[in-house]
C-alpha cells in the first residue's frame, strides 16, 4: 500500500482512526461486518426468492441471468416477471429500515418508528379512500384509481406527516411531543380507515385490506422506479445528515451547546425519514414492523448507542425480501408480506417492551 490510507494504532481504545487525506473517521469493524454480512445474505435471499415460483429457476441460473447470462425464457421470467417484485421489496425494505433508524435517533426512543410521524396512517387512510370511494361509485374509474393509488397514498402520507409536524411545533420540535401528537393523529387516521372499511362493498373492502396489510404482489418496474429514485437521492442526504445525529442524541441543551442548530437538523432529518417512509408505503402498502424492529436489531448487532443507518437499510431490505420469500412459499397460498413481517416483528417488539420495564429514557 502507498500508506495514503492511514490507520495508526490510535491513542484511545475503541476509537481506531481511519484517515485518507482530509477525510477521517473512526474504524468500526463491527458496523462494516454487520453491513456486509447483511448485503451478502440479501443477495442470496433475493436470488432464492426470484428462483421460486411456478417455473423454478436454480440459484446459479438466477445469478447468471442477473449478470447477463441465461436463456431467453429465463431472462424474461427473471427480469420482467420476478425481479421487479423482489427489487421493490429490497428498496421498500431499505427505505423503511433507514427511515426507522433516523426516526428512533431523533425521537431518542427505541419504540419510535415512522408510523408515529403519521406517514403510514395517513397513506393508509388515503389509499383506503381511493379504493373504497373510487372503485365502486364511479367517481374515479377502476383503471385510473389503480394507477393513482400510489400517488394518492404518497400525498396522503406526506400531508399527514406535515400535519403532525405542524401540530407538534412549538418554537422547535421536541422528540417527546412529536411522539404524542403522532399517536393522536395516527388514531384519527386509523378511525377513518376503519370507517371506510365498514361502509365499503365487500369486494372493495377485501381489496383495501390487502393493500393495508402491505403486499408485494404484482409489483412491476413502475413500482421500482419511484422508490429507487427516492433512495438514490435520500440515502446520500441521510448519510451526510448522520453527522449531526451523534449530537442530537443528547438532551437539547447539550446538543445546542455543541453548536448544533437543532430545529434545522431535526427538520431536515424528519423530512428525509418522512419522504422515505411515504415512498415505501406508497409502493407496497404499510409493511409492518420493519422500520421499528430492524434498527433496534442492528443497533444490538453492532453494539452502538444509536441505530446504524446503512446497516438498518441493508437489513430492512433483507427482512422484507426474506418475509416475502416465506409469504410466497411457506403456506402454499401467497400471503401479503406485511403479515409475515408482523408475525416476525411482534414477538420482538414484546421482548423489547419487557426489557424496557425499567423506564423509557426520554
Amino acid at each position, binding site marked *: 500500500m502507498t500508506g495514503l490510507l492511514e490507520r495508526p494504532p490510535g491513542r484511545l481504545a475503541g476509537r481506531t482512526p481511519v*484517515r485518507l487525506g*482530509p477525510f477521517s473517521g473512526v474504524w468500526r469493524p463491527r458496523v462494516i461486518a454487520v453491513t456486509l454480512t447483511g448485503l451478502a445474505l440479501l443477495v442470496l435471499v433475493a436470488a432464492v426468492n426470484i428462483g421460486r415460483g411456478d417455473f423454478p429457476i436454480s440459484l446459479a441460473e438466477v445469478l447468471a441471468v442477473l449478470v447477463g447470462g441465461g436463456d431467453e425464457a429465463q431472462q424474461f421470467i427473471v427480469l420482467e416477471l420476478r425481479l421487479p417484485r423482489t427489487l421493490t421489496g429490497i428498496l421498500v425494505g431499505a427505505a423503511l429500515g433507514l427511515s426507522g433508524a433516523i426516526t428512533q435517533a431523533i425521537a431518542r426512543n427505541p419504540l419510535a418508528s415512522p408510523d408515529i410521524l403519521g406517514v403510514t396512517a395517513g397513506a393508509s387512510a388515503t389509499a383506503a379512500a381511493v379504493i373504497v370511494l373510487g372503485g365502486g361509485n364511479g367517481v374515479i374509474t377502476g383503471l385510473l384509481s389503480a394507477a393513482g393509488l400510489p400517488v394518492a397514498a404518497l400525498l396522503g402520507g406526506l400531508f399527514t406527516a406535515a400535519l403532525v409536524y405542524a401540530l407538534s411545533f412549538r418554537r422547535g420540535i421536541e422528540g417527546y411531543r412529536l411522539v404524542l401528537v403522532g399517536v393522536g393523529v395516527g388514531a384519527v387516521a386509523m378511525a377513518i380507515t376503519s370507517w371506510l372499511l365498514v361502509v365499503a362493498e365487500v369486494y372493495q373492502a377485501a381489496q383495501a385490506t390487502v393493500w393495508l396489510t402491505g403486499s408485494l404482489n404484482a409489483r412491476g418496474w413502475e413500482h421500482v422506479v419511484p422508490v429507487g429514485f427516492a433512495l438514490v437521492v435520500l440515502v446520500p442526504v441521510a448519510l451526510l445528515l448522520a453527522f449531526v445525529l451523534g449530537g442530537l442524541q443528547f438532551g437539547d441543551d447539550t446538543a445546542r*451547546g455543541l453548536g448544533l442548530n437543532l430545529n434545522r437538523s431535526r427538520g431536515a432529518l424528519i423530512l428525509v425519514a418522512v419522504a422515505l417512509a411515504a415512498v415505501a408505503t406508497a409502493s407496497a402498502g404499510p409493511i409492518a414492523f420493519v422500520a421499528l424492529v430492524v434498527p433496534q436489531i442492528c443497533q444490538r448487532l453492532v453494539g452502538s448507542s444509536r441505530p446504524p443507518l446503512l446497516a438498518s437499510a441493508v437489513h430492512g431490505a433483507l427482512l422484507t425480501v426474506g418475509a416475502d420469500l416465506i409469504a410466497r412459499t411457506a403456506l402454499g397460498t401467497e400471503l401479503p408480506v406485511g403479515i409475515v413481517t408482523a408475525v416476525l416483528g411482534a414477538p420482538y417488539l414484546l421482548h423489547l417492551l419487557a426489557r424496557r420495564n425499567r423506564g423509557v429514557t426520554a
Partner: protein
Amino acid sequence: MTTPRLEARDLQLGYGDHVIVDGLNLDVLDGTVTAVIGPNGCGKSTLLRALARLMPTRRGHVLLDGRRIDRTPTREVAKVLGVLPQNPIAPEGLTVADLVARGRHPHQAWYRQWSSDDEDVVAEALSWTGMDQFAERTVDALSGGQRQRVWISMALAQGTDVLLLDEPTTFLDLAHQVEVLDLVERLHTEAGRTVVMVLHDLNLAARYAKRLVAMRGGKVVADGPPDQVLTEDMLRTVFDLDAQIVLDPVAGTPLVVPIGRRHRALEVVAADAG
C-alpha cells in the same frame, strides 16, 4: 481596559407570561471563576442558560467577546463557549471515549470526524480528568462522580475558553462534590479557562470562586469577592436564613453556619438569661 469575555446587558428572561429575570447586567472578565448563588427559583439557572444562548432573551442581549451571541453562528459560539447543563443525559450504551469525542463536534465536518487533532485533544481531556482508564466503559455503568468527570472531559475536549456549569455538583456526595470542584479549579489555574457556575453550596462557592453573584427575584443583589458577599445580612435578605459567618479554618474563606429554629430559640433564652 480589557473587554469582558461575556456580558449580559439589561436582560429580561422568562417562560410564557412569567418573567424570571428582569433588568440584569453582568460582566464576566477573562480568566475568572464566578459562582452564581441564590435561593431556588431566583433565576440563576435561567440566567446561565441565557448566557449560553440556550434560551432567547425577551429584552437586552448577551455579548460574547463583544459580539451579540444570538447573531453569531452557533458553531462559532461553540468553539469559544462550552456549557454543561444540569443533569445531562447520555444515550444508553455510549462509551466514555465516544461521549468525550462528541465534544469535538464544533471542530468537525461530515468528512472529518476523527482527525489526529481530535484524537490528541480527547486523549488529553480523558487523562486530565483521570477517566482514561474508563475509556471503553459505557457511561451508564459509571458512578455519579465519574459520570460528572466524563461530562467535564467532554466540555474540556470542546476546547472552549469559557465554560458555563449549571450545578455541576448536584446529586453528588460531599467527597465527589469536592473532587468535581477541584477539577473546576484546575480548569481555571492550569488550563486558563473562564468559568461561570451555578452552585447551591455556599461554603463551596466561597471556597472555589473568586467572585460571588447573589440573586433573588431575578435580580443581582450582591456581587463581589466571597468575604464581601457572604454576610449575615445578605443571607437574611437573600435566603431568609439566620446564620453566623465564621472563618473557614482550612481555606480562610467565609463559612456559613445556619442557626435554625431550635438554636434560635436557645439564643433568645441565653440572651434573656444573660
